[in-house]
């Protein structure tokens, strides 16, 4: 892969495209369940533009960040399923 960076997804390192958002990176590595809904459903991105809040994940310890609006950065730690 040209121009990649390594980010940590749920404790495991993954190589992802440097030019991608966290949401695209998660889907690329096969992570479709971004968050657990109030009634326990698994959810992933819907709008892709920072409106629906379905793509919330924990990024570098900060909860509820919008993965579709956040570019990946080398060494970034992402947690899903919260």
């Amino acid at each position, binding site marked *: 892969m040209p121009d990649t960076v390594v980010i940590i997804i749920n404790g495991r390192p993954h190589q992802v495209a440097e030019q991608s958002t966290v949401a695209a990176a998660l889907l690329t590595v096969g992570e479709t369940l971004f968050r657990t809904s*109030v009634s326990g459903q698994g959810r992933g991105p819907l709008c892709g533009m920072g409106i629906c809040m379905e793509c*919330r994940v924990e990024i570098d310890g*900060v*909860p*509820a960040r919008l993965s579709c609006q956040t570019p990946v950065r080398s060494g970034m730690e992402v947690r899903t399923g919260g």
Partner: protein
Amino acid sequence: MSGSTARAAHIVVVGAGIVGAACADALTENGFHVTVVDTAGVGHGATAAGMGHIVAMDDSEAQFALTKYSRDIWNALADDLPRAAERVACGTLWVAADDEEMQVVAQKCAFYRARGVRAEMLDSRQLAAVEPSLRPGLPGALLIPDDSVVYPPPLAAWLLKRACARGAALRIGIKVSRISDVGVELADGGKIACDMALVAVGAQAKALLPEIQLRPRKGHLVITDRHPNFVRHQLVELGYLKSAHGSTGDSVAFNVQPRATGQVLIGSSRQFDNNRAEVDHGMAQRMLARAVSYMPGLANLSAIRIWTGFRAATPDKLPLIGPHPTRPNVWLATGHEGLGITTSMGTARLVADMLCGRVTEIPAAPYSPCRAGQIDARSACATAPSALAAIGGAGHA
């Protein structure tokens, strides 16, 4: 109601907030015929804006009596409340910021215990253990374990549902424009005849009864996204009392609440003479900065909405419960300031007991609308009519 032949008195409750709803519930329980009217809906108004902290407050003996009385009623109902009421028996932590406030903690502890309220002093280490998100080094706190938090609008709906099951009528979308001695007049030109009107319109009471001394006191609240376990008790700084006490100037206090949803509700501010519902960013900013100074980790949480609400403040901060001093057949249940979610239940019992001619379970005089300073001087305080006699008896034995 056995054997009663008397026609049940018809009472129109104006306002379907938590106070009107609680009164409708208690009045129907005592056999009165009740109609509840509200312009907006059930549990709108301050009831949809307040924090829902059910708290025993020791500001004054009278305030304590009513809050403790009410809190006990709520606690006895705990198992019956609907899930939507989101009750959390989280208790209150009154947080001390310095050694001087720690002395206040000791005094408060003694005050509560002497009056049968469970209270426990926490030292610095214990406080840090139960609320790890608080800033390190705070000297301690007072824990009142039997306080709780609720989400008020469904509670108002639940109380009204009980009232309606006993025959009360609920009319939403109707504005009362005037209250006469024989009924209420509606903005759409209609009238509802009744034996008595109970005015439970919260901070808007002055629009119907200009003579009463009531000022809207604006407050801001901020809700966050769900961050479970960040806060575990309702946390209030001891300085809060200074903020709530003052009658002038704007004030903010650290007042943070865990919601059943895992959200964090952040308060509180107090402002007179700002009657616009819009968020006053400067106030919200000060309030949040204060909260973050106590709980640095709040800074990273995601805030999703800020809103405002109006408390109905009387000059002495005690509510107005009972017959209007000069107007026959008009009763008041308003002026609950920042405690109406809590004190709605006690208010309803007092109103029902007084109307039925029973001895009230706590003295009602401190909340009487006839007490000094509550009514514009020009409308002198006549002797309160004996309500029950005036309206011809409810259908109870």
